[in-house]
């Protein structure tokens, strides 16, 4: 029973084997299971266990199911959490997995690219891209909806790169690290992603993985990974006779450097049903930027030219501010004393109160995110069994307090806030690879929900969701539309993803035209739009035309896998509108 030696890992408890004989799988299930698995699962005799990767805005980690428990992998410097950056100093770029910065300030030389998770898949009109302009490397925007220009300063030359490339370099290092430790090739991965990521951003993450030779088995919203870990912990408690088998409702709040997410999960019997998800692109980076501007009010003017000296000053300020914010989690006030060069020196005492005041808006946003998530889940604070706060910002006292006060509960203590997400992805990796555990430790299932609504543009510039936010996946839903003009023979189906009522304020996923509609008065042809999301989160949009009195589509049905848009999707919707106006519009069918 060596398997029972769980020592290091707080989230695994000893097992009572007799307890669940019924659930226990026969001893040699691994090989036979693989023959009956679906397309997603490994087809070799020994299924490869997918590793879990948490690529954070500032830190990342890798974990894997080692046969009896989840294990975090360490790099050669014995780190479980590695800084997410890539330096372009030499000919061969290197990342935070293998490379050790000689000094924190090296991060600020202009040659190091970080915060790529904030930049990936965003266009240059995005406010998040604009706020990234204060990073100590080049983020150039033309503000027309194309991808921003990103470059690292190498020997006084701005060398261009892309967030996908930076991420891929980093992922290769993670892969090499995992391969050398696990002594096998790594191909399948489960990655955690922010809730607010659009499907276009997900394709960019998949692209980066493909560049790194990795195949994405699942992209898991971060709080749902935490929810899976929670489900496993609850199962363990039952096995240890410490918990009841009743349904437990938990709120998970996850705030890292770049993103802030909330989820409500209902857990019982190892099944985690995600009831609601909510997320925004706000995180520790925003605290930092607010503080930098607070300490140096003319920050933007001073550093607009972005020469080597400006980058250096900006970097010095960043390090000093970051340091102060960390200290303010444990101290009531902190002294900042930093020489930014060019006769610019900041010497200031900052209190925790001041920090909370400067960032008041962010705290308010976090609060409304939690309230919205509870509301969407149709759950009252009193219904919650546990409240889990994880992520890099979870140590900020104000964050803990606001979650406690909204949820009227003390916080759950059974998880390491920096490792919970990666542990969850590793569990999902094992489950999605078709691995079973004789002790029932992998008798788990996450039933995901859609984080954003998906629908089409209709009724003018309205966004009509077909699959609303928080719909359980896999999902298939449909809605009937009709033409707006008499004898309209074509309609343009423009698919968006998001939450705002105006279609063009949501993410564009793609578009296609249905032609050959028989001439008829407006409102007569029925255009049925069906959206299908499978368990791997692949979205397909189907559209067909039915004329009254017939049950068969009059033209071949269109089936389109989305997203289809690539770079430049920021101005695409506008161009479509300019080219076609309202001639190819649709509207929802009203009650007859």
């Amino acid at each position, binding site marked *: 029973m060596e398997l029972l030696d769980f020592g290091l890992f707080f989230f695994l408890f000893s097992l009572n084997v007799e307890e669940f004989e019924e659930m226990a799988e026969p001893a040699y299930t691994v090989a036979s299971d693989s023959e009956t698995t*679906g397309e997603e699962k490994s087809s070799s005799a020994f299924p490869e266990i997918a590793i879990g990767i948490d690529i954070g805005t500032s830190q990342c980690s890798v974990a894997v199911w080692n046969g009896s428990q989840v294990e975090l992998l360490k790099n050669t410097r014995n780190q479980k959490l590695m800084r997410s950056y890539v330096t372009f100093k030499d000919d061969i770029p290197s990342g935070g997995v293998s490379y050790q910065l000689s000094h924190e300030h090296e991060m600020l030389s202009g040659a190091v690219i970080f915060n790529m998770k904030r930049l990936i898949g965003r266009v240059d009109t995005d406010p998040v891209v604009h706020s990234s302009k204060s990073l100590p490397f080049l983020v150039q925007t033309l503000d027309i909806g194309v991808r921003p220009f990103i470059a690292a300063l190498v020997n006084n030359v701005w060398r261009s790169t892309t967030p996908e490339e930076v991420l891929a370099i980093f992922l290769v290092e993670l892969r090499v690290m995992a391969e050398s430790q696990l002594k096998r090739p790594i191909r399948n991965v489960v990655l955690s992603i922010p809730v607010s990521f659009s499907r276009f951003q997900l394709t960019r993450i998949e692209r980066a993985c493909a560049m790194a030779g990795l195949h994405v088995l699942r992209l898991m919203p971060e709080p749902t990974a935490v929810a899976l870990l929670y489900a496993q912990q609850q199962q363990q408690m039952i096995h240890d006779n410490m918990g009841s088998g009743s349904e437990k409702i938990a709120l998970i709040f996850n705030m890292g450097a770049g993103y802030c997410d909330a989820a409500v999960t209902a857990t019982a019997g190892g*099944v985690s049903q995600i009831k609601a998800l909510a997320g925004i692109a706000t995180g520790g980076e925003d605290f930092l930027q607010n503080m930098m501007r607070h300490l140096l009010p003319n920050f933007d003017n001073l550093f607009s030219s972005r020469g080597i000296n400006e980058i250096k000053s900006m970097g010095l300020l960043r390090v000093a501010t970051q340091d102060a914010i960390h200290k303010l989690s444990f101290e009531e006030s902190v002294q900042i004393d930093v020489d930014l060069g060019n006769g610019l020196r900041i010497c200031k005492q900052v209190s925790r109160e001041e920090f909370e005041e400067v960032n008041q808006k962010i705290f308010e946003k976090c609060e409304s995110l939690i309230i919205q998530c509870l509301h969407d889940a149709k759950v009252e604070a009193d219904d919650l069994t546990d409240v889990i706060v994880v992520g890099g910002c979870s140590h900020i006292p104000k964050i803990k307090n606001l979650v406690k006060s909204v949820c009227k509960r003390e916080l759950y203590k059974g998880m390491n806030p920096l490792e919970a997400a990666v542990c969850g992805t590793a569990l999902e990796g094992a489950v999605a690879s078709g691995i*079973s555990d004789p002790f029932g430790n992998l008798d788990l299932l996450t039933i995901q929900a859609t984080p954003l609504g998906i629908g089409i543009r209709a009724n003018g510039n309205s966004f009509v969701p077909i699959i609303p936010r928080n719909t*359980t996946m896999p999902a298939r839903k449909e809605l*009937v539309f009709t033409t707006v003009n008499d004898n309209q023979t074509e309609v343009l189906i423009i698919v968006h993803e998001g939450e705002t009522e105006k279609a063009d304020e949501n993410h564009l996923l793609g578009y296609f035209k249905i032609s050959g509609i028989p001439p008829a008065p407006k409102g007569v042809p029925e255009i049925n739009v069906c959206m299908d999301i499978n368990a791997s989160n692949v979205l397909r949009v189907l559209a067909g035309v039915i004329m009254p009195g017939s049950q*068969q*589509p009059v033209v071949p049905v269109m089936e389109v896998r989305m997203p289809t848009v690539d770079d430049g999707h920021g101005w695409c919707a506008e161009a479509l509108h300019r080219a076609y106006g309202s001639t190819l519009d649709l509207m929802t069918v009203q009650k007859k």
Partner: protein
Amino acid sequence: MLSSLLSPMYATLPSPFLPKSIHAFSPNKTSSSLRTSAQAASFKSATATESNSAAVALAGSLYEILRVERTASLNEIKTAYRSLAKVYHPDANGSSSDGRDFIEIRNAYATLSDPTARAVYDMSLGVRARRVRTRAYPIRRWETDQRRKIRDYSPFFAIDVWTQMLCFIGGN
């Protein structure tokens, strides 16, 4: 795959549940109106493909999908849903399902786990089996369910239910 996707899709046309009518009836705002209509549509599509004529054969079908008794408590329904999910969800260990079974299970669960929707559905079963009850709807169910949800209950509910019901049957 395409054809199997399409047949239920077109079987639902024209949908008797239009967002507007649902909206007036639904106690919850916005997104739920669309969801309810879609659920109704997919319920109809599921049943319509199984059997077009015999209404009686449909009786209890959502309960049959979840493999529970008509008198099952909310807890029993939840437990049944979870154990079926562990078998039919495409991510479940050893599952070879493409997800369609799970969607059906999920839709059955969505109706039966919501006291309001379940009451409406139970009545539709009664009507379909030509066992129309004059005494409104089975109140007993409500008491066994979460008390909180009863607050959502409006005094006009009973009337709306019948409007809804007529619409439901008329569209069939």
